[in-house]
Each structure stands twice: as structure tokens, then as C-alpha cells.
């Protein structure tokens, strides 16, 4: 394998979500909330939750196998796995190791990227750099989360508990046969100053011990995610357009050239606000948060999967993947499909 000036392309995509659908109405039976309240603020109608022991790698395996089939490749063609997750199956080792074993990948480099809502775009950037450096031919890039086992599904936790869902999606990244068709560029950002505006504290290695029974209890338990929603919203609607424009400008393109925007699915209102601010027709913006909620690292490839299969993303389409979330981190990838 040698360093290559060939750009990479998404050669196949797959997805997997748990079977159990959890509607807003079902949540309103276990906490003080309502379908109307959730839909108005987030655009979410339902999400998927696992219903028995199941890790992000169990969903990731199904998604990866579909992606490989779509790419016409076998697991022996994969020599790198990058797994984006903030809810790994176990504390360590990584989901990437576990997935490699489940897929029978043999001895290959495999690592997790912990970068929250922008984890998938960051992982795509890592896999792209590694392939172009000649360190891999084909990489599996997976985004997968099992949020439901770490949510406070009571009235106490409703602000965050209603938002997140479980799911996974995977792509196979590899060299493109056509010089102008594929992943054109990636753009990565972070601003750790706001780490505690959207975070999950415990287990926290900076505390001794890192997790205690008390972290599972109280008014605002440290073992559940916490969010200052309005603060996050304000930054999201600034950083999304910035990074989308950055990705377009880096390729000599403008908003008018963009065929499809696939934003992270954190909140439908954020995505509507961003599209309006950019002057982007809402028909060009892919949203599926109504059915899956926020699946963090899985949300972008899950939405991309749908747009590829329903024909919104076609050969030649200029597609922007854009993310903003906890960290804060934000990122974009521009592709010509």
C-alpha cells in the first residue's frame, strides 16, 4: 500500500436499529411529558430502544455487513475499523476491537473515536487520512450508540431522556475510480470551553473513585447526561452554517451548488433554523429525527442511508455532512456522490 492522491469514496452503506419503537405517548406514561411538548421542541415522534442485552457493536455488525454487501466487498478487504461512539459496549477495550472480532476481521488496526455528535465525521476524516497515507485499502467507519441504557427515563430526566435513541450505521470507505467523485474534504473543530454544557460526567476518571452508587441517585445524577439546551441551541445555529460554508468554500463551491445537506439529528428546530439561515430549500435537508431521535454518532450515516435509498442522493450530488454537539465539537465533510 502506498500513499495515494486518489480521493476516497463511500463504497457502501448499511444501517441497523433495534426493533422496539418507543413513541412519545409511551414515554408520557412513565414520565410527566407529552407528545405535543416533545414534538414542538425537538421534532421527535418516536425513537428505538433495545429490549434485551445489545451493544453498539451488535447493531454495528449488522450495519457493517450490509455496507460491505453494498460495496461488493468482504471483510478480508477491510484493513481498518474506526468506530464512533460515546456509549461503548463495555468500558474498555474499544468497540472497534469487539466489532472486528464479531466480523472475523482478523488482525487489523481498529480504534474508537469518542467525539460525540461529530464522531462520525471525525471518524470519516481519520479513515480518509489513513487510506491516503497508504495505511489501509478499505476502512469500515461505523457510528453506533446504545443510549437507552444510560438515560434517566423519569420526570427528573425528561429534558434529555426523550431526545436520545439507539441505532447504528456503517460505511465502507475506499479509493474512488473517478478523480472528482468521492470525499472532497473534511473540516474538524472543537471548543472544549463548553464541555460541561452537554456532558455525561460519571464515570469520571478525574474523580476518586470514578463512579459511586451515589452517582446513580439524587436530583441530577452524574451518571446520566445533562444539557443546557438553550445554550447548545444558540451555538449550534452559529457553528453549523460556519462549517458548512467552510467546506463549500474549500472546494470553490457555494450554497447554490449544494444538492443535499445531511445534518446531525439533534433537534429538528436547529436544522430548520440552519437551513433558513443559509437560504437552503428544506427539501435539500435530510431529517429523520422524527423516527429515531438523536442517535449521536449514528445519526448522520442513518440519515445518509435513507437519502441514498430514497434517491435524494444520486450520482453526482454534492452532499454535505455536518455535525455539532457535545465537546463542543463540530465538523463537516463535503462529498460528490
Amino acid at each position: 500500500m502506498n500513499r495515494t492522491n486518489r480521493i476516497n469514496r463511500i463504497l457502501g452503506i448499511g444501517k441497523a436499529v433495534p426493533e422496539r419503537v418507543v413513541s412519545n405517548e409511551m414515554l408520557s406514561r412513565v414520565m410527566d411529558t407529552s407528545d405535543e411538548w416533545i414534538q414542538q421542541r425537538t421534532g421527535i415522534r418516536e425513537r428505538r430502544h433495545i429490549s434485551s442485552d445489545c451493544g453498539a457493536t451488535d447493531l454495528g455488525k449488522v450495519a457493517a455487513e450490509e455496507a460491505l454487501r453494498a460495496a461488493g466487498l468482504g471483510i478480508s478487504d477491510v484493513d481498518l475499523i474506526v468506530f464512533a461512539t460515546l456509549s461503548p459496549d463495555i468500558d474498555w477495550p474499544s468497540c472497534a476491537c469487539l466489532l472486528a472480532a464479531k466480523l472475523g476481521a482478523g488482525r487489523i488496526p481498529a480504534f474508537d473515536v469518542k467525539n460525540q455528535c461529530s464522531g462520525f465525521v471525525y471518524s470519516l476524516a481519520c479513515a480518509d487520512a489513513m487510506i491516503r497515507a497508504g495505511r489501509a485499502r478499505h476502512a469500515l467507519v461505523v457510528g453506533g450508540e446504545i443510549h437507552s441504557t444510560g438515560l434517566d427515563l423519569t420526570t427528573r430526566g425528561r429534558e434529555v431522556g426523550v431526545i436520545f435513541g439507539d441505532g447504528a450505521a456503517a460505511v465502507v470507505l475506499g479509493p474512488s475510480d473517478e478523480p472528482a467523485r468521492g470525499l472532497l474534504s473534511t473540516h474538524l473543530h472543537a471548543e472544549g470551553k463548553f464541555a460541561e454544557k452537554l456532558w455525561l460526567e460519571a464515570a469520571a476518571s478525574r474523580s476518586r473513585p470514578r463512579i459511586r452508587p451515589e452517582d446513580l441517585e439524587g436530583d441530577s445524577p452524574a451518571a446520566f447526561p445533562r444539557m443546557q439546551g438553550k445554550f447548545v441551541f444558540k451555538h449550534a445555529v452559529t457553528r453549523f452554517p460556519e462549517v458548512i460554508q467552510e467546506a463549500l468554500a474549500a472546494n470553490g463551491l457555494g450554497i447554490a451548488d449544494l444538492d443535499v445537506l445531511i445534518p446531525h439529528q439533534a433537534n429538528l428546530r436547529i436544522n430548520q433554523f440552519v437551513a433558513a439561515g443559509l437560504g437552503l430549500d428544506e427539501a435539500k435537508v435530510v431529517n429523520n429525527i422524527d423516527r429515531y431521535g438523536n442517535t449521536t454518532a449514528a445519526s448522520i450515516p442513518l440519515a445518509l442511508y435513507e437519502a441514498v435509498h430514497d434517491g435524494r442522493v444520486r450520482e453526482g450530488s454534492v452532499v454535505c455532512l455536518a455535525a455539532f454537539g457535545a465537546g463542543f465539537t463540530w465538523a463537516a465533510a463535503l462529498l460528490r456522490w
Partner: protein
Amino acid sequence: MRPDDDVRLLGFGCHLPGGAVGNDALAPALGTTADELARATGIRLRHHAAEGQGPSDLALRAAGDALAAAATDVADLGLIVFATATPDVTFPGAACFLQDKLGAPTVGALDVRAQSAGFLCALDLALAFARLPAAGGGVDGRYARVLIAAGEVLSAGLDFSPRGRDMTARLADGAGAAVVGTGSRGPRVRALRWYTDGTLAERFWCEYPASRQYPVRITAQNLAEGRHFPTADLRALSPIVEQRLAEAAREVLDESGWQASELDLAIVDYVAPETARAAARVLAVPDARTVVPTGEFGHVMAGGLLMALARAAGELRPGARVLLAAAGPGLAWGAATLEL
């Protein structure tokens, strides 16, 4: 470009927190004696971070030294890659906290999880980003300076009771940092290979919190049972690790066209120092030229190789040949050759 210009490790740092924790300090809680701990683990001391200190705090100290040695302003960083299995909080990752503490610009910051191969993984990525081709030819200039941090605060998750005797004296805290970029001085990477074998994942792991557990990823019962503490079957792993370390080391030596006898230094890391030394002997590296980080300051998973390299770098002559090799949970292992 000057003739010697290449992507290199331009500066290093290493930080060990607090004072050394000797076996005598640990032995009573673990229900054993200092002599027995030393005999069982081959480790005499380790460092433990203070309450409130996470890996980003340790890495901040190491990064300050690395940036100074590399004569790099924090404002010029293009990316921060943090290898750790024990982030400050569950999310966001340690890289975000480090970025804030450094006052770095809003460039990319990510955590990678590859256990004891964490530094090799981060170095692999840093080299790939530093050399990323630009669309119009040449190199994408955005990643001209990449900061690698690699470290752990494992002590916050250890079992200081007799149940933890096998692991608690072995796992330790610390961080290393390196600036990677184009320059004419500093080690360059001749070869780098690392691997994983997840079929061995449960032989050396920390199971909880476990998002895969339905309906709740961690319970008071899981805590009472100590399932959130690391465990390892070192007896079963030892021969496997010895073999894989030696294989990976031979691969990078061959790729570099080097003999083990030509090495100025071999840094070989594994949670059991005697296994790391055995791998070095299989390669025929003289004991006097072998450094085992775990033997010096306990096993700092992602950080050990980089910390030991930072400590040794000042002593090495220009042109010196260095082998790095590490193995740990995953199983993840690998090796690299560096030429100063």
C-alpha cells in the same frame, strides 16, 4: 524545504503526577506485603493523580513541555489527538478539556481509544494528517502541527481491596505529549504497524459501565460486585503477548532494514514487565538497551511508550535508532521504529 525536512516528532513531554506510590503504601489495603507485590508484579512504584485531576490535567503539563521543545506556539496547532481509555468524564473526551486548558484555537480535538496501543494509533493518525494531500497537489497545510497526548488516570477506577491485588499495583497514572510536524530535527518514524485481536477482549478488560447491559448500563449491584474494576488473565495472555510483540517488532525492524543489535534503545511496554522483557530477549535486544515503562512507573496503557520516549529522548545521539513496542487490552499491540 531543506534536505532534512520531513514529518518528525518535534518535541516531547512527560508528566507523572504527585509523588511516587511505593508498594509499602499499597500493600496493606491489598492484603499483602510490599515484597510480595514487587515479586508478583515486577513493579516497585507508580504515580497516582490527585482528586480532581484527569488525564487532560496531566497531559497539559506534558503538552507544555512538548510545545516548548518543538518551539511551537499553541496557536499554530492544527489538531489535537488524545489517546486514553480513562477520559476526565464519560463525554466529551479528554481532548476537548485539554484544548480548553491549553487555550488552543477551535481546531479539531478528538479522543481515540486503542488501549495500550493508543500512542501508536495517535501517531499513525498524526502522521497521516500531517501528510494529507491537498486537492490541488502538495500537502494540506491545516495539519502542519498536530499535538498528540496519551495518558491515563487509571487509579480512579482501581480496587484498593484484596480483591484488586492482581491489577491495582500494576495500573498507573501519567501522560505524555508530542508535537508532530515538518521540521529538520527530532525523530522520524521509519515504520509503524499496530493491530488488534478482539477475540481476546475479555481476557483483559474493564467491563462496566457497559452500555450493552439492558435495561441499565450500571447498577449498584454491578458496583458492589466490583465489575467496574479491570481484570486480566495474565497467565493466559503472557505467551501470546510475548509472541505478538516480537512479531510486530520484527515487522517494523525488517521494514526499516535494521537489525535488533543495531538498536540504541528499545522501549517495550506491557502490564507485566517480565513479558515485555522476554519479548525484547526474543528479538535479541540487549537488556541494557531495553526500557520497560511499566517497570519504571506502572502501566499507563496509552501513555507508557510516549512517556518513556520523552524521558529518554534527551540522552539519545542524532541518528540513534529506537524501537517502540506495546501491547495491552483489546488485544491491541504494535511497534514502530524511530530514527533520531
